[in-house]
C-alpha cells in the first residue's frame, strides 16, 4: 500500500547516500506536496555532475524540440557531426508532407567541423555549407544551430546568416546560439529558439483572414498528436493558423500573428513566444491541455468562451458530446483493469503534469512526479515568477525587449471583456502549475537522478512508471512497465479524444499484461527445490505402471 509509505522518511533515506553538499542541494528539489499551501521547489538549477541525470542540452531543446518539427526549414547544425546525427529523426515529430510540399525533416544537415575548423574557425565552411544547401535544395529558410565548440572558438553564426541572406536574396537565414553548455538543460534552448523565431520569422508573412483564428503553441506532433488536434479544431470550426511547431511550415510561423488567441500546450517550451506575441501584436494567450478527454473538452470550451460566439459554443458542445461517447465506451471497457493502480511521471516540462489528467480518468493515482527541465512556475504556478531568483545560468539567456508593433498591434478584447472572461475561468496569461493538482503528501522531484528513481520504485512499486528512453529498460528490468512519454513507445497519438482512447488501451495493456508473470524461472523461486530424490531415495517422478 503505497499511500501508507512515509514519503518524508523516504526522502531522507534517498538523500542518505549522497555526499553532504549534494544531499543539501538535492533536498531542495525533493518536496512533499501540499496543494493547499504549495511548497517551494528548487528547479532550473545546475545538475550535480556525476549524479546521473536524464537532462539534455540547450542544442537539443532548440534544434531538436522547437525547430525540429518544421518541415520546410533546413536545419543546419554547425559543429562536429554528432549533434546533427543524434537529432536526426529521433523525436517522432510527424509531418504531413504529402504532394509537393517541401520536407527536409528526413535529412540531416551538418557542417561536420573538423580539427582545422576548430583551430582556424569554421565560419568559412559554414557559409559554404549554406550556399551548397541553398543550391541543392532551394529552401525558403535555413536555421543554423550552434554546437558547443562554435561559441568557444568565436564563430559568429549570426553574422554568417546575415551575410548569406543578403547574398542569396530569397532565403531567410538565421542563427541560434544554442551551444550545449548554455543554461542548465534543454530549457535554455527552448528560450533561444523562441527568441529567434520571434525575431526572424513571426510577422514575416501575410495576414490571414478567417473566423475564430488561433495558434497552438508548444505542441510538437509526437506520434501524430497535432494531427488529432487539427481534426478536432476543424470539426469545431476553429481555424488553426499555426502550430508551434508540430506539422508546421515556415509560412504558418510567418503568418501566426494573424491569430486572435494563442493556446499554450507546453508552457515550458513556448511561453516566451506567447508573451512576446501579446506584447507586440496584442494576442492574448491561455494555457490549454489536450491531453485527457476531459481536459480536451475543457480546453475547447474555453476557446469557444473566448470568442463568445453562440454558434461556435454549440458546435463545440456537439463535438464534445459525440466524441465523449466513444471515449466513455472504451474507458468503461478498461476501467476495471486500471482503477486503483498507481503511476509515477518524470518527464519533460509539461507532460508530467498533463498526463496526470489521463491517469485520473483511468482511476490511476499519481504517487510522485517531476520534470526533467521545468522551472518553478511549471510546478508552483506562474504566480511565483516574480520571486524566482535569476542565477548566472539564466542570465546568460537573452531576454528580448519587445515593443508594440504600431501598425499591426490589435487589442483583441477590451480590458473589461478580458476581466469578465478571466472571472469565467479563462485565466489569461496564467498557468497554475503541476502541484495544485497533486495530492497532499505526494513527492514532487525535480531533475530526478537515476539513484532516486530506483529508490522510489523499490519503495512504492508503482504499476506504471512514465519517463523516457534512458530510463525505460532499467525500470522494466525491475519488473515495472515503463511508458515513454517522449516517444509514446512508438504508439499514440495520445492527444484529444482519439488520443485518450489510445492511451486508455495502452495503459490497460501495460498494467494487465501477463508477460511480467513470467519473470523468474520456476527453479529460482523459493522452495522450488524440494529434495525429494535425496531424502526418500526414490525418484521424484513416479512412473505409472
Amino acid at each position, binding site marked *: 500500500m503505497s499511500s501508507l509509505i512515509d514519503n518524508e522518511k523516504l526522502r531522507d533515506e534517498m538523500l542518505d547516500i*549522497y555526499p553532504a553538499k*549534494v544531499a543539501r542541494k538535492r533536498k531542495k528539489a525533493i518536496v512533499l506536496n501540499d496543494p493547499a499551501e504549495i511548497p517551494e521547489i528548487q528547479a532550473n538549477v*545546475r*545538475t*550535480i*555532475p*556525476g549524479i546521473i541525470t536524464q*537532462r*539534455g*542540452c*540547450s542544442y*537539443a531543446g532548440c534544434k531538436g524540440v522547437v525547430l525540429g518539427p518544421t518541415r520546410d526549414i533546413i536545419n543546419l547544425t554547425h*559543429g562536429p*557531426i*554528432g*549533434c546533427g*546525427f*543524434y*537529432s536526426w*529523426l*529521433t523525436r517522432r515529430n510527424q509531418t504531413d*508532407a504529402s504532394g509537393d510540399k517541401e520536407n*527536409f525533416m*528526413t*535529412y*540531416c*544537415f*551538418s*557542417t*561536420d567541423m573538423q*580539427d582545422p575548423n576548430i583551430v582556424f574557425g569554421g565560419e568559412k565552411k559554414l557559409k*559554404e*555549407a549554406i550556399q*551548397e544547401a541553398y543550391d*541543392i535544395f532551394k529552401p525558403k529558410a535555413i536555421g543554423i544551430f550552434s554546437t*558547443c*565548440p562554435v*561559441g*568557444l572558438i568565436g564563430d559568429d553564426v549570426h553574422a554568417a546568416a546575415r551575410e548569406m541572406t543578403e547574398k542569396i536574396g530569397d532565403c531567410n537565414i538565421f542563427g541560434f546560439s544554442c*551551444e*550545449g*553548455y548554455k543554461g542548465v*538543460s*534543454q530549457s535554455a534552448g527552448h528560450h533561444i529558439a523562441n527568441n529567434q523565431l520571434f525575431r526572424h520569422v513571426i510577422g514575416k508573412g501575410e495576414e490571414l483572414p478567417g473566423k475564430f483564428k488561433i495558434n497552438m503553441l508548444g505542441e510538437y506532433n509526437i506520434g501524430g498528436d497535432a494531427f488529432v488536434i487539427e481534426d478536432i479544431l476543424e470539426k469545431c470550426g476553429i481555424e488553426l493558423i499555426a502550430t508551434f511547431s508540430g506539422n508546421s511550415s515556415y509560412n504558418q510561423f510567418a503568418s501566426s500573428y494573424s491569430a486572435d488567441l494563442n493556446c499554450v500546450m507546453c508552457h515550458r517550451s513556448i511561453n516566451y513566444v506567447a508573451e512576446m506575441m501579446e506584447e507586440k501584436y496584442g494576442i492574448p494567450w491561455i494555457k490549454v491541455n489536450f491531453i485527457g478527454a476531459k481536459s480536451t473538452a475543457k480546453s475547447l470550451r474555453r476557446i469557444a468562451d473566448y470568442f463568445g460566439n453562440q454558434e461556435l459554443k454549440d458546435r463545440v458542445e456537439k463535438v464534445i458530446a459525440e466524441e465523449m461517447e466513444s471515449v466513455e465506451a472504451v474507458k468503461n471497457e478498461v476501467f476495471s483493469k486500471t482503477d486503483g493502480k498507481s503511476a509515477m511521471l518524470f518527464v519533460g516540462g509539461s507532460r508530467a503534469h498533463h498526463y496526470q489528467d489521463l491517469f485520473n480518468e483511468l482511476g490511476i493515482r499519481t504517487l510522485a512526479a517531476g520534470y526533467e527541465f521545468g522551472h518553478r512556475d511549471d510546478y508552483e504556478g506562474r504566480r511565483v515568477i516574480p520571486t524566482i531568483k535569476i542565477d548566472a*545560468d539564466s542570465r*546568460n539567456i537573452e531576454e528580448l525587449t519587445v515593443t508594440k508593433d504600431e501598425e499591426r498591434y490589435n487589442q483583441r478584447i477590451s480590458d473589461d471583456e478580458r476581466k469578465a472572461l478571466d472571472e469565467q475561468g479563462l485565466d489569461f496569461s496564467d498557468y497554475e502549475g503541476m502541484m495544485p493538482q497533486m495530492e497532499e503528501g505526494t513527492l514532487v522531484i525535480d531533475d530526478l*537522478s537515476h*539513484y532516486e528513481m*530506483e529508490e522510489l520504485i523499490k519503495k512504492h512499486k508503482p504499476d506504471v512508471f512514465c519517463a*523516457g*528512453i*534512458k530510463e525505460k*529498460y*532499467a525500470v*522494466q*528490468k*525491475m*519488473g515495472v512497465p515503463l511508458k515513454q512519454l517522449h516517444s509514446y513507445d512508438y504508439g499514440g497519438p495520445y492527444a484529444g479524444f482519439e488520443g485518450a482512447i489510445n492511451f486508455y488501451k495502452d495503459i490497460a495493456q501495460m498494467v494487465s499484461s501477463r508477460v511480467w508473470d513470467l*519473470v*523468474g524461472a520456476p527453479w529460482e523461486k523459493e522452495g522450488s527445490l524440494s529434495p525429494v530424490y535425496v531424502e526418500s531415495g526414490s525418484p521424484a517422478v513416479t512412473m505409472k505402471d
Partner: protein
Amino acid sequence: MFLKHTTAEVADRKALTVNPAKTCQPVGAMYASLGIHGCLPHSHGSQGCCAYHRSSLTRHYKEPVMAGTSSFTEGSSVFGGQGNLVQALNNMFTVYKPDVVAVHSTCLSETIGDDLGQIVKKAIDEGKVPEGKTVVYASTPSYIGSHVTGFANMCAGMAKQLAEVPAEDAAPLDQVNILPGWVEPSDMREIKRIMKTMGVPFVMYPDTSDVLDAPMTGHHEFYPKGGATIEEIKSSGLSKATLALGAWGSEAAAQELWKKCRVPYETLDLPIGIKATDRFLSKLSEITGTPVPESLTAERGRALDMITDMQNYLYGKRVALWGDPDQLLALSEFLADIDMKPVYIVSGTPGKKFMKKMEGILGDVVPEAKFKNGERADMFLMHQWIKEEGVDLLMGNSYGKYISRDDDIPFVRMGFPIYDRVGHSYFPTVGYMGAIRILEKMLGVIMDKQDRDAPEEKFELVM
C-alpha cells in the same frame, strides 16, 4: 516520398554533409567502456552529449545504458571543467559504486583544452577515487575521426593505462589477446565461443556480451555480470600475442600493447564472411600451433553449402552499403566472394587505407563499384548514386529505411545504429555462423520481394 529532394544529379559539395554515415567519437568510447566489467562510463562535456549517447545506445540495444556527465555550464566552459569532473568522480564512486569509471572527453572539453590525465590524477590525489577503484580515460574529440575512432581510442586507453608490463625475462602467459573491434554483444559472444572451440586461452576486451544483452530478472543489475575484468585487461600486457580485429576499431589498442608491453600483434579484418573468418582461424592456428577443430570446419561447410544452394538468388545482385570501414571491408569481400556486386559504398569514417583496401577487394571483380570515405562520404551521396543506377539490396543502419521505402529496395539492417529492429544483440554476424545469419537475412528480403512482386501465375511455393 521521404527523400523527395534527392536527385540523381550529384552535386559537388565542399562543406555540407547531408545524411552522415558516421557519428562522433564519444558514443564509441561509451560503448567500449560498457565492455569493462563494473564500469560506469563518464562523459566529460555538456549534458546533451551524454543524453544523446545513452539514448542512441539504448535505442540500439533496448537495454539500460548508464553513464555520468560532467554537466558543463557556461562557467565551466570558460574556466575549465576540472571542478566538474573531480566532483563527478566523487559522486559516482559514492552513489553508484563502480569498480571502474571510464572517462571520455567531448568536443567541448577538448576545445577548451581540459587534460583528462591531469584531472584524473588530481581526483586521485584528493582522495576522490576510493582505494582499489580504477579510472581509465580517453581523449575523444568529436571533430576528429568518427564514432569508430572514439571506440578505438577508449580501447587504446584501456591498454595503455591498465595493461601490466611484464618482468624483464618473464615468459609470456599462454594466452592471446583478442581485440574484437566495434561489433555487437552477440559477435563478442560468438568470438568467445570460437576461441573456446579452438581451445586457445585468451583475454578479450572490450566485451559487451552479458552487459548489453542482459536477462530480464526482475532486478536492475546496475553492473551486469559481463565485461572484461580489470585483472583480465591488466594481464593482456603479459600475453604472447594480440589479434586486433578490424584496423579502425582495434589497431590503436594493439599498438599500445606493443609499445608498452612488447606484445606482438597482427591486425586482421573483422571475421565477417568466409575468407576473413578463414584468415582469423588460420592466424590463430598459426600463432598458437592449435589446429582448427573439425567442428569449425563443419560450420564453414554449412555456410558454404547455403551459399551454393542459393547461389541463383545472389548472383550479380547489386548492393549499396554504408557504415564503418572494418565492417564494410569484410562485408564487401564476402559479397564479392559470393558473386554479388557491392557497387556503392560510403563511410564517414576517415582513413586513407580504406580506398586502397577497397580497391584491392573490388578492383578486379566489381570494377564498376563506387566508394568513398571520410568527409561528405554520406548517405545522400550514396542515394544519388542509387538514383543514377539502382541496386537490388541495401545494407546498413536504420537510416536506410527511407531509401528502401522510397525506391522499393530490399534492406538488411547491419551496423550502428539499428533503432527499429531487434536481433542484432543476439545473433552474430561474425564467423561462419554469422555468415549464415547474413545470408539468411539477405535471402529473406530478396525472396520476400520476389514473392511480393510475382504475378499470381509465377508465384512459387518452392524456392
